[in-house]
């Protein structure tokens, strides 16, 4: 009898805007495929942890983007066009195909 280990993968589109892209190599959009092993809790918390520690995307001081296990004040996390506050924030359970944006608030005029 053969044991098949199912590896579930989530395909996500990540987007940075408002200046937050500068902290991640000045690339605005990336598509990633992450297995449950990488994304332990399958939630935004683990996505942020992965972005910070393992993605290799970070090109600047992490404190320009992260604060503890969340994002710094002034960055809006948007899940499929909705403010993450409407979707359980850090605990949101990622779905295959999700479109996650990190939007830095602008103040200029």
């Amino acid at each position, binding site marked *: 009898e053969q044991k098949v280990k199912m590896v579930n993968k989530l395909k996500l589109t990540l987007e940075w*805007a*408002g*200046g937050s892209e500068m902290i991640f190599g000045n690339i605005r959009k990336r598509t990633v495929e992450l297995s449950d092993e990488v994304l332990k809790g399958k939630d935004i918390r683990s996505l942020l942890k992965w972005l910070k520690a393992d993605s290799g995307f970070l090109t600047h001081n992490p404190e320009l983007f992260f604060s503890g296990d969340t994002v710094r004040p002034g960055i809006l996390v948007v899940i499929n066009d909705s*403010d993450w506050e*409407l979707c359980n924030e850090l605990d949101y359970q990622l779905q295959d195909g999700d479109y996650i944006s990190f939007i830095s608030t602008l*103040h*200029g*005029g």
Partner: protein
Amino acid sequence: KNTKSNLAYLETIKRFSRQLILPEFGPSKQDILGSSAVLIVGCGGLGCPAAIYLAAAGISTLGLVDYDDVELSNLHRQILHTESSIGMSKAFSVKNAVKNLNSKVTCLTHTDSVTSSNIMEIIKKYDIVLDCTDNVATRYLLNDACFFLRIPLVSGAALRFEGQLTIYGLDNGPCYRCLYPVPPAPENVTNCSEGGVLGVVPGIIGTMQALEAIKVLCGIGEPCSGQMLIFDALTTKFRNIKVRNRSQNCQLCGSNPTINELIDYEAFCGARATDKDQNVSIL
């Protein structure tokens, strides 16, 4: 009644004929604009287009707030100023342009910085406020003052090739603090002097602030409240993001508010309330 008022009436009809024939607008909405007062805080890249389109549409009164004078480096985006107005107060310069287009508009200029001690006195005369400023401290100040007076705040922002637009404090929509309970660290804030901006971007956002003000005042369409419009000029793409509702936990507009009067916003933000030197580490 008399020839003079009849003539004025006919002039009004003629001037606004192209919007009077819109079924959703018509004379009743024109009358609303003709008796409404809008405060524009910041006579720069956002404030210029906002002011001129509101004046063109027939607003009764425009409040024009800016402590700053016109500089050459403003002219790439602040389209109401002119080479000959360099050195003049920006608020006066905007007033001149507004009066040239529509002499009927009452313009009230405020050339002092807005602060916790003078803002309530200024904004209480207005039906709606446009945040066309360039710094975080003034954005919190305007948010709190507008909330205390229950005046909707049409907020625009532009930097580099991007723009953002939303309305705070309208009906059950969130306030600025609902979205941003904690101000960003000063070193994470970039203004137009440092980051640069393509001039058309505040042009588009400022014109849209005028649009949203007209919609809110006249009660037409669906104003951009509870959502944020974000614009990327490099790809010509706009997105409407659904933002959170008014937060129960908001320190200002929540159920147990801890902010019951205006505070010291420069201290709160750790940054000066000027467009010029944003990132001051010691205050």
